[in-house]
């Protein structure tokens, strides 16, 4: 009798577990389906397209091997765009990171007002890119009616940075960094606040200065966040498109050409989707490398 009861109990348990497992799969299904449909399928399609001469319309593209890659690698504009993406990455790994981290550290001591500051700093990030771009184009960089125009009227020999081949890239990056650094501030502040208060108090009682407090108490605790943001910045930098397209479309004279605008022109101006996909793969490669580095470092542990 005991055996029968135990078996019945195990059977009920098994059914319940199977039911729960089914529920878990069902709950997971929408996310998996979405990921499959909008991430995996396009990614595989892009990878395949990169080896074809698809014009974006044809239903029977021809396989061209590595021809698309050979052609873009032989194109000086590709290397120019790549160089711009590297500069962009370096800029984003320094300027907004330093600004965001510095501001986050300062906000740590503003217990009552930091929420207000966070909202203010985050505003450009939550506004649409097209809104930010129009504000900068018409109110800041405009040489007739904007801030640049006003300074010109005051007798300063100044021009819109977007008009000069040497400064256009930095002019565009400045707008994108302006929109992005507040986000970093909020992320870093959230991470910094996870640092145990007793450790901060102990270090303070030991008489450390501000730099030592940051370097030896806060930084070890936020290292994983810093590393994650590092990877995200590298990925986003090689995908940068919206502000470049909205502000300069890669001009003047390709001075702000990025891999994304380079690919966009292939796809939507000259009907060379195969080449555009090849450029897309190269763009993704850099993000992939950054992701591998992140995964490798994560596995080893950030404290190691």
């Amino acid at each position, binding site marked *: 009798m005991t055996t029968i009861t135990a078996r019945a109990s195990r059977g009920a348990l098994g059914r319940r577990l199977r039911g729960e497992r*089914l529920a878990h799969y069902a709950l997971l299904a*929408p996310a998996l*389906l979405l990921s499959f449909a909008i991430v995996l399928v396009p990614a595989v399609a892009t990878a395949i397209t990169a080896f074809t001469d698809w014009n974006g*319309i044809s239903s029977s593209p021809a396989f061209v091997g590595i021809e698309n890659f050979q052609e873009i690698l032989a194109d000086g504009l590709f290397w120019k765009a790549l160089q711009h993406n590297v500069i962009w990455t370096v800029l984003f790994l320094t300027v907004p990171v330093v600004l965001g981290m510095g501001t986050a550290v300062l906000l740590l001591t503003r217990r009552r007002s930091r929420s207000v500051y966070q909202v203010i700093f985050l505003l450009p990030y939550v506004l649409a890119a097209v809104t930010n771009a129009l504000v900068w184009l018409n109110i800041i960089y405009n040489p007739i009616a904007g801030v640049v125009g006003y300074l010109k009227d005051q007798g300063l020999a100044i021009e819109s940075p977007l008009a000069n081949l040497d400064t256009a890239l930095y002019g565009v990056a400045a707008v994108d960094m302006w929109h992005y650094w507040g986000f970093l501030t909020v992320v870093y502040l959230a991470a910094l606040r996870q640092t145990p208060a007793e450790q901060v108090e102990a270090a303070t009682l030991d008489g450390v200065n501000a730099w030592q407090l940051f370097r030896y108490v806060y930084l070890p605790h936020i290292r994983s966040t810093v590393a994650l943001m590092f990877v995200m910045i590298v990925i986003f930098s090689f995908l940068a498109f919206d502000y470049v397209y909205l502000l300069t479309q890669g001009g003047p004279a390709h001075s702000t050409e990025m891999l994304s605008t380079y690919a966009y*022109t292939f796809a939507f101006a000259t009907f060379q989707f195969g080449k555009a996909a090849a450029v897309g793969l190269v763009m993704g490669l850099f993000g992939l490398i950054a992701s591998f580095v992140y995964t490798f470092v994560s596995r080893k542990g950030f404290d190691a």
Partner: protein
Amino acid sequence: MTFRISARWVALPLAALAVTAVSGCSSPGDDASGRAPLEMWFWGAPAAHQEALQQNLVEAFNASQDEYELSVTFDPDVDANIQTALAAGEGPDIVYGSGPAFVAPYAQEGKLVDMDEYAEEYGWKDRILAPMYESGTVDGSLYALPNSVNTLGIFYNQAVLDEHGWTVPTTIDELVEIMDEAQEAGLYSSVTGNSGWQPVNENYASLFMTAVAGPDKIEAALTGTGSWTDPAILDAVETSRDWYQKGYLGGDDYTSLNFTQSMQLLADGQSPFFIGPTLAFQFATDYFNDEAGNTDDLGFTSFPTIGEGLASPLYTLGTTASFSINAASESPDGAAEVIDFMMSQDFMETMTAEWPGYWGVPLSGVQLDPTEFDGLSADYVATLNEMFASVDAGSFGYFTATFFPPQTQQDWINIDSVWNDVEDPEAFLQQMQSDFDEELAAGAVPPIPAQG
């Protein structure tokens, strides 16, 4: 007390949700009134112009028959969205295109309807200016009709000219002299710019090809009987570079100005000229109008030729957009009816009165009476009449967006690399020749109407 969700009650709704999400919408079919829906996408024109199109096309067409119900969606990214939709076998019934050069790849892939039968039914071939009709053909069949001719010339502010004792230039020397004096007077020589739209560059590439190299050289290059490295075309590129560097194209602000701002500066008396396409008439209405009391100040004249032996005036022939029929349309007959509705003198007159610059429908033998139009529309109509006569006589230049294959067109858009000394003109044209040879071999060059 614990609450346990039964797997069945979770799985079923989620499965239903997933099926609903991936199944999409059902076919639209006829609307409640029994009319078949017709859809057209159009660029994101200013509100007043959208209203004009809504009233004079959508409402007028829907009132003219009881079989179809037309609707128009205004979309700032219409070019890219149309391409994506067509590639997917979707999209609107009436396909708005950025020009005939856009049409060929889609026609060759069977994404657009061969409109030869409709052309015969509606008599389009006889009604449309021959070069414009031809520009919409692919392998001899009609796939697109242009909504309007577009040419390049000089908008001028008569008040500024009068103030400085200048007259409307009729020769290139007169034009250059005024522009130099304007610079000395602290004005822009002329205003224009490509802010927000890099392809503006091709306006000036086209302009200098016509005015310096001349249509014969360009026709030869486009048909493969000549070369893009021809000295006359090289001269055109170098002249455009010189003009850019001398500040004749928007001064230092070419990359910061767009057509709207340029027109505003012209109206404000900051420049005597705005060198640009006739489609810019549509932007002029905001700054030259009866309310401002300066409607009569705006004038338009042809751009004088520069090349030796070239006749003047010489108009660069182009189109603002084109209309085709989507092969996936369930109502191609209705779409053809809408296109025919637009290819009429009535529609041209109505739209030109309210939206000058964008609806110079290329109707053969039509000469509108400028005195029947008010304000800027009268100027635009006068320009159209001159241009139509010139095209009918077989004398016209070739606009890149209308007659050039995609990669060659893109190369011309990149002419600012020459203007900024990033690339030398010879290398620029050699690359052009190389790209063009590939496109010619691939059959990507649109039909090139011959000179008369």
